[in-house]
């Protein structure tokens, strides 16, 4: 009877045995069990390699370097193995380097960049702009592109425009932008990566850019605003700048750029023509009203000098590269 009880207790205890871990890795990397088909043992024992080459090269085994240096002494598994000292000084410089793949490739991809820009160097009027830029990379580092900016309605006059005329009787001619369009060449000389507190890594690049385009501008009447109005006109502008992209993914990047537009700006004439006639056919400059040629209403007297102008803009935006994916030429 007691035996039966012990038997029952034993059965109950069996429930307590640990069950097999079903998720356990069943693959083993234990190489002590033969490795008949493939072996990386270069100590001379490989039957397939040693056996095949042995007849032709006197039992030469080992790696590629040994092959380059000619026949090595035949060894057998019973003999002690001597490590071969290989002089690599006579070998040519390696032509293949171990280089990590670039996170993002630009070659052959398009880049679409919506931007917002703000002028930096005009203390009287701040020119703000929404823009769009489309680029295409001819190579990894060379690209071409076109951009468009819309300024009108976004300009902001500063308080200096009020204080300086009030204090110094000095009227500073200012201008308004409507739009701009430009063609660019881009070159990417700098590529790098950064860690944030040694936790997250992101890649970035830096590019320089130059090109030509135009700005569509007009003077804001400040000298004789009661009479003068101006139409927009095209000003051919060269541009040069530097920028950077911080890649969030392989096709999205934060974009920042400094760009200097250099052009000849038409400014409002600081002098007001003396006569008051509104008759365009009045050619008698001797009478009291004066003549049309010297009239403040004659728009040919409104524009003054052209002045070389630097419009330094800071753009921020987001770059979207497409196609979104790309293939590396070499495997990782």
């Amino acid at each position, binding site marked *: 009877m007691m035996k039966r009880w012990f038997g*029952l207790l034993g059965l109950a205890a069996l429930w*307590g045995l640990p*069950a097999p871990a079903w998720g356990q890795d069943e693959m083993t990397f234990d190489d002590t069990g033969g490795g008949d088909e493939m072996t990386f043992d270069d100590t001379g024992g490989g039957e397939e390699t040693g056996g095949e080459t042995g007849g032709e090269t006197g039992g030469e085994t080992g790696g590629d370097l040994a092959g380059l240096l000619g026949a090595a002494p035949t060894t057998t598994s019973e003999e002690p193995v001597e490590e071969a000292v290989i002089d690599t000084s006579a070998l040519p410089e390696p032509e293949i380097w171990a280089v990590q793949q670039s996170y993002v490739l630009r070659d052959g991809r398009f880049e679409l960049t919506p931007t917002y820009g703000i002028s*930096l160097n005009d203390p009287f009027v701040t020119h703000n702009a929404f823009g769009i830029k489309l680029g295409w990379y001819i190579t990894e580092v060379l690209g071409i592109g076109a951009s468009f900016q819309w300024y009108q309605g976004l300009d902001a006059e500063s308080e200096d425009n009020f204080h300086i005329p009030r204090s110094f009787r000095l009227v500073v001619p200012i201008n308004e932008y409507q739009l701009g369009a430009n063609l660019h060449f881009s070159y990417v000389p700098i*590529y790098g990566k950064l*860690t944030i*507190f040694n936790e997250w890594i992101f890649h970035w690049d830096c590019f320089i850019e130059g090109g030509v385009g135009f700005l569509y501008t007009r003077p804001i009447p400040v000298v004789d605003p009661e009479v003068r109005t101006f139409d927009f006109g095209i000003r051919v502008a060269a541009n040069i700048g530097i920028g950077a992209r911080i890649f969030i993914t392989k096709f999205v990047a934060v974009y920042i750029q400094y760009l200097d537009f250099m052009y000849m700006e038409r400014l409002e004439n600081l002098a007001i023509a003396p006569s008051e006639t509104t008759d365009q056919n009045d050619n008698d400059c001797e009478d009291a009203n004066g003549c049309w040629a010297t009239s403040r209403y004659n728009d040919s007297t409104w524009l003054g000098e052209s002045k070389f102008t630097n419009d330094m803009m800071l753009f921020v935006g987001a770059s979207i590269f497409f196609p979104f994916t790309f293939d590396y030429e070499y495997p990782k």
Partner: protein
Amino acid sequence: MKATKIVLLVVLASLGFSAAPRAARAQEIQLEGPLAGAPAVRRMVLYREGRFFLTPSVTFTILDTYRRHMLFGAKAEYNILDWLSAGIYFGGGFGWRTGIADQINDLGIDDVPGQDYDLNFPLRGHVDNQLGQLQWLGAVEGRVIPLRGKFSLFGKLFLAMDVYVNLGVGIAGVKERGTTDCSAQVTGPSCPQDDYLPMETRVAVGPSFGGGVTVYFNDWIGLNLEYRSTPFTWNQSGTDEYGESEVVLDRKIDSNDRFLAWNQMMTIGCTFIFPFTAERTN
């Protein structure tokens, strides 16, 4: 007795069942090979941690309306951690007129018929007697260096770099137009007819913030580029701006005429790092 045995058997079986371990259904992923347990960066050069930076620098103010300034100085900082440092900056220098100030200087009240003197409008060639000047600037600041990494230049030159932001307190020595009271409209010592009272100096205090980049050429020398803003109020134009309205001013040059200015500047410097050898991580 039989019933007791059955109950005892059921209890024993239940205990055994409850003691059985759960089967491991989630596979444990174990990274094997040489990268198992390895840090994100091996042998990382600790350019900052525990080291002292000394950066002789030149600073240019930017976006100035009346006067640009160039300050020669130095920045000293001790790096408590690789991402945290504290330091001081001091620079002193000189300034020169902007294009607008040149125009004001060339015009002068002399050109206004029947008016010899105006509190705001200087005589021709005298604008320097009223424009504010930044004589020196100092700052005590903490610095956080969240970004560090490396970059290649033309695919040939590989350099390490970090990016930081700083925040602290700035103090500035400014020279402004002396307090001038012409409210009585009477010419006298406090309201000179054709001359200026001496400029007055004072110390202005404000926050100081910015950010920059340091590029390391080796363990102990680098290039530093920094943006800084130290906003405080001062009278840069030396003009009367305060009064009952925009057109009725109080005809006094005093502290009421000061405006808040951002006082933005760019600094470029050469950083020397002590001790000369940086430690490496494992």
